[in-house]
């Protein structure tokens, strides 16, 4: 059952807290991460956000850590490249390969660390939003923030049908695999192309059926006001404010500190 982030968003322990507050916390933390000059504040955010997600929202730690492996592997790869490419400062480490000297200098190393920290902090904050706030509530916040209604409604329809098409794609894929459509690279590519074209046609048909379904219920250009989401509790607002201020303070106070 639980294989999509969306499933957790609907069942986590923070499901019923105010979506605006959760977005404020997540987005605030992301902004702090990308604007912080040193890795300390992002690392603090990464650590605390993970704690909040696993402890408060009760997302299984195992699932969460496998989820984090994705950004971790990406950021590690790019950090290695950055570390080698950037010059300046003392040589920390060097080796010779086919007569070319490759080395890591201080500046490069610091930049690489910052990169990893920022990515991690940002991803932890993003996962916090994704795992605790259902899309529907994010839509309602977007509407509240003044995004044009038609854009919000269009996104809602798209969101709804993602799941229909995920199911269909899985079924088509199964049908292909059952008849060895994944045997060999050539076959796999061919099957994938077929899957895409069939899915496109199906979504087209689904669109037509959608119009019929909406017309059958007197569609008049309105898709509904959202149910009122939970109001934020004063204690929760205070906690978020304290957290953001603390994180900002750390970012400001440690701006001159270098790890290496």
């Amino acid at each position, binding site marked *: 059952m639980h294989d999509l982030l969306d499933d957790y968003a609907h069942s986590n322990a923070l499901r019923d807290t105010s979506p605006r507050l959760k977005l404020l916390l997540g987005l605030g933390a992301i902004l702090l991460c990308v604007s912080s000059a040193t890795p300390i504040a992002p690392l603090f955010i990464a650590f605390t956000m993970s704690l909040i997600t696993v402890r408060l929202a009760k997302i299984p730690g195992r699932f969460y850590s496998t989820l984090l492996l994705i950004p971790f592997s990406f950021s590690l790869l790019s950090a290695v490249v950055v570390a080698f490419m950037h010059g300046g400062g003392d040589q920390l480490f060097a080796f010779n390969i086919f007569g070319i000297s490759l080395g890591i200098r201080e500046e490069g190393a610091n930049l690489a660390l910052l990169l990893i920290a920022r990515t991690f902090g940002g991803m932890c904050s993003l996962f916090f939003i994704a795992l605790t706030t259902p899309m529907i509530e994010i839509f309602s916040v977007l509407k509240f923030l003044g995004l044009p209604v038609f854009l919000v409604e269009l996104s809602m329809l798209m969101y*709804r049908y993602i799941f229909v098409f995920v199911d269909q794609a899985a079924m088509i894929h199964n049908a292909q695999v059952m008849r060895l459509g994944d045997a060999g690279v050539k076959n796999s590519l061919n099957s994938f192309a077929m899957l895409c074209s069939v899915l496109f046609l199906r979504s087209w048909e689904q669109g037509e059926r959608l119009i019929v379904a909406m017309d*059958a*219920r*007197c569609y008049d250009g309105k898709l*509904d006001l959202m149910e009122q989401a939970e109001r934020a509790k004063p204690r929760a607002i205070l906690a978020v404010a304290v957290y953001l201020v603390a994180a900002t303070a750390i970012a400001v106070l440690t701006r001159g500190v270098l790890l290496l």
Partner: protein
Amino acid sequence: MTIILETRSLSYSYGDETAALKDVSISLQEGKKVALVGPNGAGKSTLMLMFNGILRPSSGEVLFHGRTLRYDSASLREVRRKVGMVFQNSDDQLFAPTVYQDVAFGPVNLGFPEDKVKKYAGYALQYVGLSGYERRPPHHLSGGEKKRVSIAGILAMEPEVLILDEPTSNLDPASSEEIMDMLDELNCGGKTMIISTHDVDLAYRWADEVILMEDGGVLHRGTGQEVFGDAELIKRARLKLPIVVDLYKELVGRGLLNGSKPPRNVLEFTDLLVSGNRGTTSQEVLLGKIYICNVDGPDLEGIKGILEKVHASYTGAMGTNAKIMAEQARIPLDFTYGVIDKCILKALTGKNSLIMTSGGMVDHSVKRIRVYCEESGANIEVIKLAQPAESSMNSDMQKVLSQKESTTLIEVAQ
């Protein structure tokens, strides 16, 4: 009987080659349960889409309440509100990201103010037994729940006619029966029901009128017994006989049974068999009683109190309210569909049974049992359990209860 929907020489073709409907003229009476049966491609769905103006006939006309359907947007809105349609595939119908938004879609587009939308959507969800599901996304629902939400979305617009395309396809037997039980409940509330189905057994026992379609035309129409009595016609329409009819024909063919027309259901079949054998078994069985408990009045404790006094071997619940109540009170249910018939069958074998139900279904049940008694000559005692005026209840409880007027403790109906 007033005619609510009518078609006059209706024809329709998709594209320009294939004619999906050919000269269909039928009239449907208000408050009836109608089943369209026929093979794939017979034109059932096409005909259904004509009833609320989704498809426009190539020729001929559709009449709603005796007025020809016009295809300007104001008339279409009107007819689509009154004639609600539930699609076969729930995923086609449920397009909103949450259950509440989907149910509220119709009322919102009818331009109702916000509090009215809330009220209607809340009422519709309660009716289908899904209160508390408001914020769920459709992809987290089971097939049966999706179907219920689809029906709620239509109910929220207060239609007079409900059209359901293959309502039980892709549902497990229990879910199907629950959906059909709900359709009966709605019909009991005065709504005209039209379903299309391949399930001949379902159409046979459920429908007041069966319309047999084949190749875009109407082959035969009438009661289930009339339509399914003609084996040749059924074969031509690539259908099969309902089990009850098949068995009846076999037994009549062997001279084991005699009857003028096939029985409609298990109850009638049993009666037919028993009356055939009555000559040999002379002793009369002592008949059981049927208690009918109205769950509208008392609260959970009240219900439990009432039920403790009754000695019933079997318990059944009819309608969503009663089923929810039974679940809350942890009352094990023996019957959740076809409840009245099953209880009569048990009464005939001398067992007492209890029906939990609500609203208009109470009188419906009493009437149904009485009609049966008159037809069969059996004298089954029906006991309506109303709300007890118990002295042990505290005053608060009494205040709440006294709002619903009900003074009789036990009303003996027979």
